[in-house]
């Protein structure tokens, strides 16, 4: 068992030695850029993720595709409205917190 752990340890060291310097060059500047990002951007991106998803379902997808096999044409069986109703509270939560 100890020998196994030793092999894993040596593998980790080898991975660090071979790939570490190259990957650091890519991820170090990315981290610095993101750490300095203006924090309201986080909120905008998160809320945008929800709003974008709602817009995609409502505008981007065909009604016939979304509601295929729906029990009726009533608005309460329209899954586009289900999406909006399910996601709007999240937008409020991310704006509040």
């Amino acid at each position: 068992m100890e020998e196994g752990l030793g092999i894993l340890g040596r593998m980790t060291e080898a991975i660090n030695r071979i790939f570490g310097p190259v990957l650091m060059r890519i991820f170090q500047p990315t981290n610095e850029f993101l750490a300095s990002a203006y924090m309201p951007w986080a909120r905008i991106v998160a809320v945008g993720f929800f709003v974008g998803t709602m817009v995609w379902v409502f505008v981007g997808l065909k009604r016939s595709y979304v509601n295929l096999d729906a029990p009726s044409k009533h608005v309460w069986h329209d899954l586009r409205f289900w999406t909006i109703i399910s996601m709007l509270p999240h937008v409020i939560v991310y704006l509040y917190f």
Partner: protein
Amino acid sequence: MESTAQEAIRGLAGIDVAIILMYMAGVFVLGTFFGKYVKSAGDFFQASRALPFWAIGMSIVVSDIGAMDFVAVAGSAYTDGIAVANFDWIGSMPAMVFAAFIFVPYYWRSGVYTIPEFLGRRYNSAVQVIHATIWGIFLLTMLSLMLWVTGDQLMNTVLGWNPKVVVWTMVFITGVYTFSGGLSSVVMVDVVQLIIMFVGGIALLVLSMWEVGGPANLKERVADTQPRMVVVCDSERAVSNEAVKDSIEKAGFTVLGIDRLEAKKDGDGRNRFFVRLESIEIAETQAEDMAKVRGKTKELVTKALSTLGAEGNQAGVEQLRTYESHFTILLPHDTDKPYPWTGIVFGLGIVLAIAYMSGNQAVVQRTLGARSEWDAKGGMLFGGFLKSFIPLMVAIPGLCAVALIPNLAEGDRAVPAMIGMLLPPGLKGLMFVALLAALMSSVDSTLNSSSTIWTTDLYGRFFHLVTGRSLDGRQALIVGRIFTVVFILLAGALAPWVGRTETIYVFIQTALSMFQGPTLAILLLGIVWRRATRWGGLAGLVLGVIFTTILSNVRGLFPSDDPFLFVAWWSFVFSCIVTVVVSLLTRPEPADKIRGLVWGQVMKDAELQSVLNERVS
């Protein structure tokens, strides 16, 4: 305070015990009732394709939330704040919308039993077997772990019950009804379990908020809470409370109180202390830059403590709790807490959540049993809507615990302590039934899904290889039931071993997390891009897992100590690139093979589209 809460829970009244026993008997009867409808593999694995959207949605939620999630999420909210709710908000709803409108329709239309089977049809059998093997082993290990963690850490620690008796009782009840009724039993029992879970959770939320005095009071009281930390001075000899207090005060902090904690089970940290500080204001750092203040505090305290133990022994801050960001849901990229916003939005929201909701057999199997495509999609959306309430029932009581019982050294004690403090007899029994419901629903779903994968993708492939024929419906039903019995007995027998051998759990979890980004990449490209080829999918999967291994092992690449969110995102991006490049370099798949499995064909095929329009109007 902690022991008082524990005493209160251990003293379950007769009515509480009666409620727990009635619940177990009721679940057993309800679950076995559906056995009489099972005649073929389709009935067993897909509930005869008769499930309505509400049952699918409720079952998805309750299968996803285990008893330990209840405890761990509240514990995380107690120590790190509301940011943990991201896992049920941005880490669920958008993913469930994408699953509903991109993945589920294709699984449902292709009539498959499992996701590996879908991947096998879209790419090749190598992809199917690799995916099925990883998930088959993971689900089996999770079964054992769920049983043991709940039996040992919840029922034994909190109620004082014998963990082996708890494990084998759960094995018997869930095993019998899952064997008997398959997916129908699992889903219908889940519906009842979700209702019980919500009643218990809402009771805990209302009583917690009542005790704290409402949301405004809660925010104020949490913000006023003084910093706490858990420090370790790992020395062969006992270190006194006074010595630790003096060292920390010499570093410039005022200690309000200090308690010795029990050593960890693995023997590390023989001298652990819970310390209450007046503040962590430090002259040379700006008060608003809390990451720097927290970092400097840890550095100063570690330096002060290092003089206490023998030379070479470890000393330091195991945990530093401050409460200024407990109501901030998106934390900075360089936070020292576990959930930076970049990891949450990209790693969790875009990769891990979608991979989980679209690629986890235990979640998707319910939609495959839907009575129509609309019910499959609607079930996903309804599940997402219900899941939005989970943080309110779990994370908010964890935050209330900060105001009511701020001196718990372990965050995971918050929910048991709150139950002991706040719930009256009867309601206390109901809350424990809710926790049992959370456990049993996760166990039955995992059991049913693992037997489906082993039957269809592993035994089925092996049978085909040896005999040249596929399993017929009756053979698949018999094999599925045999796997169900073997797996639940195996899970019960291995539970103590898996529960105590942390490395196995860590290894399986790590293996699965390495798999998530690459799997999502090939699933997504397989559905949205007709040019994706079998070689592209295989290369994306294998090279993606190798890239994930490299990212996980190179130190200091990402700001978090446990960078799984970042690793998931970058491995997804890498696998997408590999799949696209290799696909473009290899021969396109024949049109017949991918017909009905690719998004563009369904959205653009005029003939298919006019049929869809007719059916809707």
